[in-house]
């Protein structure tokens, strides 16, 4: 039963409409005609966090934004997942420097992150790959052909 439920969850990841910065545009691209994230059942972007399963942190998280992000995360009903999309969300990205005063250096310092998708911004394929990785994490198996082994 749990297996079936996990399978259902993995194939119906509704992200919350939550765009932060540049990566949000690529997130939109991933939902658009060319890449069509809806193929995996993840195209239902819910504006209300209460109805979403997945938060895609797509951009820089600042210290002013952090409490808002935490609230949003708390409002999501469990089970819930987080994808850190783009370098800013992973580590602060190119905006980290000595003496910076406004950045959370990595969203994993605030909330648990399941999948990291690096890039500045990552291509929509990168995000799709992140989705597939998340599916892999939820169900334990990979249903789709993996990325071509480059090295």
């Amino acid at each position, binding site marked *: 039963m749990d297996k079936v439920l996990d399978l259902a969850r993995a194939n119906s990841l509704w992200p919350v409409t939550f765009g932060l910065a540049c990566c949000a545009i690529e997130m939109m691209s991933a939902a658009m005609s060319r890449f069509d994230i*809806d193929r995996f*059942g993840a195209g239902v972007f819910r504006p209300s966090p209460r109805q979403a399963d997945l938060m895609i942190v797509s951009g820089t998280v600042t210290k002013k934004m952090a409490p808002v992000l935490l609230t949003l995360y708390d409002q999501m009903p469990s089970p819930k997942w987080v994808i850190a999309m783009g370098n800013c969300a992973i580590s602060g990205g190119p905006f980290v420097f000595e003496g910076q005063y406004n950045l959370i250096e990595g969203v994993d310092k605030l909330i648990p992150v399941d999948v990291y998708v690096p890039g500045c911004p990552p291509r929509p394929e990168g995000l799709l790959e992140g989705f597939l990785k998340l599916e892999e994490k939820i169900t334990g198996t990979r249903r789709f052909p993996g990325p071509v082994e480059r090295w």
Partner: protein
Amino acid sequence: MEQILKILDIEGVRLAVGLLAVFLFVVVNALILTWAERKVAGHMQLRIGPKEVGPYGLIQPLADAMKLLGKEIITPRNVDKPIFYLGPIMIFIPVLVAFVVIPFDSYLQVRDINVGILVILAFSSFTVLSILMAGWGSNNKYSLIGSIRSIAQSVAYEIPLLLSLLAVIMMTNSLSLKDVVVAQKGIWFIFLQPVAFIIYFIAAVAETNRTPFDLPEAESELVAGYHTEYSGMMFALFFLAEYTNMFIVSAITVTFFLGGYQGPFLPGIVWFLLKSYFLVFVMMWFRWTFPRVRFDQLLNISWKALIPLSFINLLVTGGLLKL
């Protein structure tokens, strides 16, 4: 005494079977329609829509439903609990009632009540009521605005809805849905009452809160409108109700204007479903084409265009009938 008991018991069994059938139909219909909606949306937007989950993505709605069932149901702080929980349940009353009186086929009708259409119209106001309860119970400003909009909208659109159906009723001299269908044996009422058909369909789209009249849940303004605070299964109930409502208004339109279950060659039920789902498709087509109207425009369309028009239509119909 015993006889009455017997009949009542049989009636009770019938009711139970009917309820079960209705419940099954509601669920299956919603599953099909969510899938269809996403597929239609996808292809209208040059993309595929659900594909990877099952063949042609057919299992997608099942996965969604399962997931929603398995989700935590959050009760936000400061909500008015009884009202908050009643909202999504109440929304099914009109749905159930409507299924009782709609003739799916000449023999497939749970009950032919002689005031059938009044039943549907009377109970359709429960949709608004439950939206209102949801909006109020959520203790959220967006929800509240959403439900206030919903009330004003339904008050405005109930009138043309009624008036346009009244024109048909004047022609059939009966409030029973079956009689209405039978009266269309020769010619469908859409050809005799085209204005009433258009008015009814527009008002029906508005009553079901579909784009371009989806103001109570206007995504870009009110986050998710009246169901902003609902999660998991409770949200799924709203979702179910929306799609069932879509089907019901289409079914009523079919019954009143498109000859109901009548049609050549195929069995009546097939014709009925074909026609209904075609209208549902048209509603989806609307949704993926048009932007949303503004609130005052929404009311203006009803008060300044639809209501006068339906009155004129009613007068003309009455006059012609007398002649």
